[in-house]
Structures are given as structure tokens and as C-alpha cells.
């Protein structure tokens, strides 16, 4: 099995050779290949590529939800949004939400993966249970937490008061200073299993010999983590980190269903602001919303370039 696995993961080594030497290759391979790609390319260009450019186009015009006309205004929307004073606070909240959420997700995910990587009775069941929040629809996760945070049914406050962790009930979603931590709690609850499971996949192929050898050399548990586990999972960790950062930065559903960006603007991140300008606020200005969405684009590009770097360096180390 390991032999077959090694053969299979060989990226384009022996296979590339047999392929290029093969006399069975049809001269029409290019034609067939492109023909088979057409439907997928049509979807990707029509529903991702074109809309991305169209978002920029809309942001350079004034497009109101109920108005057909779309006059060109150049960079006016950008000037308005950047000078209005609520763009940078929204950017700050988005970065805060992303950095804190991802940091907690990775710590909890790593600790859980390390424990799940050991052999103990019920380990398989525990692994399935840990995956549960990740498998739930975001709506279900948010309804669940709104129910826990709710102040008339107050189970979370009840437990925390009984445990003497707090003295009086916390207004989780109604108080500005608690709304962001509450959103982070729910986001972390749904998102940490992704780290737990990907890091577990990175940890499990590490042979026990490596740990034993480190033990013989007198390495304590912390040193074994730092010098055996961490280097082995590092490539997986970097890819998971970047993916999770992209998803968390663009998180809409959890925040919107939990707080709708409130109270006040306490949880208004860029995705929430984009939606509010386009579909909620008085004029329903799609262009204003598009400006917020387009301004998240540089962040996405940086993250995607990082991801590309990590994936290609990972392929190099495997090859």
C-alpha cells in the first residue's frame, strides 16, 4: 500500500514519461482537451471572471437597485467611500475579526489534532464529533448560538453564573463590546474543525520512530512538538492558514445572521458593509456596495499569491 501510494503521488515523474512516449496518444488531444474544458470554462468565465470585472465596472458608475440607468462617474464612489469615515473602521474590524478568529482556530485546531493523533479508545468517535460544527449549515450553527446567547432563555449566562465565572448576565449580542467577541466565538466554533482535520492529516503519517528517537535524545514533549511535529505539518499548516484567512475575511453569513452588523456598527465588517450599502441602506446603491467589495480584492490577491507560493513550495518538497 505504501509502495502504491508513493507511486501514485509521484507528480508527473514516471507518468509524464510514459505519457509522452506513448504511441497511443491521439493527435487530436489538444482539440479534445479544449472541447472537454469548454463547459467548465464557460461557467468560470461567465460566473466568476466576468462578474469580477463587472464589479469594478459597476463601482465606476452609479447604479441604484431600482434604477435601470447607470451613469459613469469615474472614481467618485471611491472618493466618497474612502472619505466617509466608516470604510477604515470597517476594514479595521474585518482585520481584527480575521486575525483573532484564525489565531484561535489554529491553536484549538492544533491542540485537538495532537490529541486525536494519539491512540485511545473512542478516538474515532471523538474525531467525528469534532467535525460536526464544520458539517452543519451556517444557519443552523447561528440559530444554535443565538439561542445560547439569548437573554430570555439565557442558558449560557446561567451556566457561567453557576460556575462563578461571571456575576451578572452578559448581553452577548446587544452590547457593542460583546458583539464582536460573540461573532468570533461562533465563527471559531464552526471553523476550527477544518484545522483539526487538516492538521491531523498532516500529523498521522509521522512515524513513531521519529518521536522515539527524539525521546532517546532527551527531547521533552515541547521540543518533540517544535522539532518533530511542527516541521512535518508546516506545509499543510500554511495552506490551511491561508484558506481559512480568505474564508474568514469574507465571512458574511455568520455575522449577518448573528448581529446584522450591529449593535450600531460594532460588527460591520467589509462584507456586511458591502451588502448594507447595496441592498439595505436608503438609496440601495449597488455601486457603493461594489466599492466595498472591490476594495477587499487586493487582500484576496495577496492571500492567493501566498497560497500559490505555499502550494508550489510544497510540491517541490514532495517531488
Amino acid at each position, binding site marked *: 500500500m505504501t509502495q502504491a501510494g508513493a507511486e501514485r503521488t509521484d507528480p508527473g515523474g514516471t507518468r509524464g514519461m510514459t505519457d509522452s512516449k506513448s504511441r497511443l496518444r491521439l493527435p487530436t*488531444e489538444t482539440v479534445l*482537451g479544449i472541447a472537454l*474544458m469548454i463547459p467548465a470554462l464557460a461557467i*468560470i468565465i461567465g460566473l466568476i471572471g466576468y462578474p469580477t470585472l463587472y464589479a469594478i465596472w459597476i463601482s465606476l458608475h452609479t447604479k441604484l437597485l431600482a434604477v435601470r440607468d447607470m451613469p459613469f462617474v469615474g472614481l467618485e464612489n471611491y472618493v466618497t467611500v474612502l472619505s466617509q469615515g466608516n470604510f477604515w473602521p470597517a476594514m479595521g474590524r474585518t482585520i481584527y475579526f480575521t486575525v483573532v478568529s484564525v489565531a484561535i482556530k489554529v491553536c484549538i485546531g492544533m491542540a*485537538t489534532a495532537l490529541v486525536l493523533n494519539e491512540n485511545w479508545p473512542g478516538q474515532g468517535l471523538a474525531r467525528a464529533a469534532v467535525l460536526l460544527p464544520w458539517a*452543519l*449549515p*451556517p444557519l443552523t450553527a447561528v440559530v444554535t448560538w443565538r439561542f445560547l446567547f439569548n437573554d430570555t432563555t439565557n442558558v449560557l449566562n446561567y451556566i457561567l453564573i453557576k460556575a462563578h465565572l461571571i456575576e451578572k448576565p452578559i448581553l452577548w449580542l446587544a452590547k457593542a463590546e460583546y458583539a464582536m467577541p460573540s461573532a468570533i466565538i461562533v465563527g471559531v466554533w464552526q471553523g476550527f474543525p477544518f484545522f483539526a482535520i487538516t492538521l491531523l492529516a498532516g500529523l498521522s503519517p509521522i512515524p513513531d520512530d521519529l518521536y522515539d528517537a527524539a525521546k532517546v535524545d532527551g527531547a521533552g514533549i515541547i521540543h518533540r512538538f517544535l522539532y518533530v511535529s511542527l516541521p512535518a505539518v508546516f506545509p499543510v499548516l500554511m495552506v490551511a492558514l491561508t484558506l481559512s484567512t480568505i474564508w474568514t475575511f469574507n465571512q458574511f453569513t455568520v455575522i449577518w445572521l448573528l448581529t446584522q452588523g450591529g449593535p450600531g456598527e460594532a460588527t460591520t465588517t467589509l462584507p456586511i458593509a458591502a451588502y448594507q450599502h447595496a441592498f439595505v441602506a436608503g438609496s440601495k446603491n449597488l455601486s457603493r456596495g461594489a466599492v466595498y467589495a472591490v476594495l477587499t480584492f487586493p487582500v*484576496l490577491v495577496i492571500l492567493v499569491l501566498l497560497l500559490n507560493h505555499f502550494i508550489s513550495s510544497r510540491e517541490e518538497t514532495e517531488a
Partner: protein
Amino acid sequence: MTLGLKWERRIKVIAGALWMIFILTWVLFPTYWIALASFKHPKDLAVRIPLFWTTEPTLMSYRGLFTQPFLQFERLTLNSLTVSLGATFLSVVIAVFAGLALARLKFPGRQRLGMAVFFAYLVPPVLLFIPLYVVMAAFKLIDSRLGLVLVYSSFTVPFCVWMLRGYFHNIPVELEECAMIDGCTRVGAWVRIVLPLASPGIAAAAIFAFTLAWNEFLYAYILTETANAQTMPIGLASFIQLDVYRWGELSAGALLMAIPAVVLYFLGQRFVVAGLTGGAVKG
């Protein structure tokens, strides 16, 4: 030295056990709480001291869910099913073609196309929802299930292509070359050899595509207006805004919506594992 190791091992076991107790409580208690709420009698839901168990489980909340006139829960379920199945079918068919091309054929730009598909999956809905709304409105596809199927394929297609490309790549190319020596055409070898071997991967791609579409919120939220095309999460979200204190019905709806997603997710996980090991044994 040996004593040190022994103590270290003890501390490790205790710390690990405590951590797992914390994690499992954190993961399972909220889920238990919502499930319990859906079976509680309404009078037990808004009480000062929460009840951690119910001695008289009732289906009242579920009945209430299906009899709310403004909610039309059956219709929402039907819409969710239609849209998710439509997007799944469309994207699996498209992804089988594209996956075979990317994994099996040599043509210029193949590597770049593969990466482009992956990056297409990463473009967030937040960037696309405003232009897609304008485009869908221009094509009169607002509040239409067909419109949702098309928009959902913007994330299910790249996801399935990426997954199937990897899966096809792992099936030994020698197998189809043997079939071609025996007189099969290339496409014939794909249909007879590659696709049957890849069926666990195709099933897993279909399952994950279905759950992605089933769980989707933002697009359905802006592109649907009435029970004509509204999906379950949209109906249940309007329930939050209309009636904040109907926790029984809301929990029942949220739980019913979660069941297919969770069951399919765990089924898909197993398919991926079984597919990989099955392939390894045969190879």
C-alpha cells in the same frame, strides 16, 4: 530520567483527556441544546432556570413549523432540494469532462488552467454577489430556481473539477492504455475503465457539491424574493426576524435542515477514504 519520562507521560495523558472533555463539551453541548429545544414543550422554552432535560418530549414544534402559513416549509424544502440537486448534477457532469481533460490529456496551458480552476473557487461570493445580482436581473432570473442553479454552479463547478482532477490523476494511466491496446478508443477506455474506478470520487464530489449548495446563504438571500424560489436557510432567517421568540419552531427547522447536510458530509468523508484505500489495493 525514567521517572521524568513517566511523569511527563502522565501529565500528557491527563492534559489530553481534559482538553478532549473541554472540546467535546464545547462542540456537542450547543448541538444537544438545539436538538433538545426542538422537542421541548413551548412552555419549557422561556423559563428563568433552563431545563437540561425534558421528560415529556413533544413534536409540537415540528407540527408548528409545517403549519406556519407565512413560512411554507414544504415549499422551502422542495426549493432547497431542487436547487441543490440541479447544481450538483450540472457541476458533476461538467466536472467529469473537465477533470478528465486536466488529468488525462496533454494540451498547452493545462497546468495554468488547473490552477485557474482552483483560484476560481477562492473568489469569494462577497466580490461576486452585486454583479451577479445585476446580471441575473438583466436575464429575468431573480426569484428563479434556475437562476440559483446557475449561480451555485459558480462555486460547485470549480470545487468538483478540482476534486475530480485529483481523483482521475490517481488512477493508473496504464489501465486505460491496456484497454486501448485491446481495441478501445480513448473515450471508450474512459467510460469503461476510468469512470467506474472513479465512482467513489464522483460520489464524494457530488455529495460535497450538494452540501455546499444546500448550506448556501448569501446568493439565495439576495436572488430570491418569494416562496417561488426561496430556500430553507432564507425562510428560516426570515423566521428569526419575524418572530424572535418562536425558538421551538426555529430549532426544529434548523435541525431538520442540518440532518441531510451532516449525514451526507460524513458519508462523503467515508467515500473519500474508501476510494483512496480501494484504489491503492487495486493499484
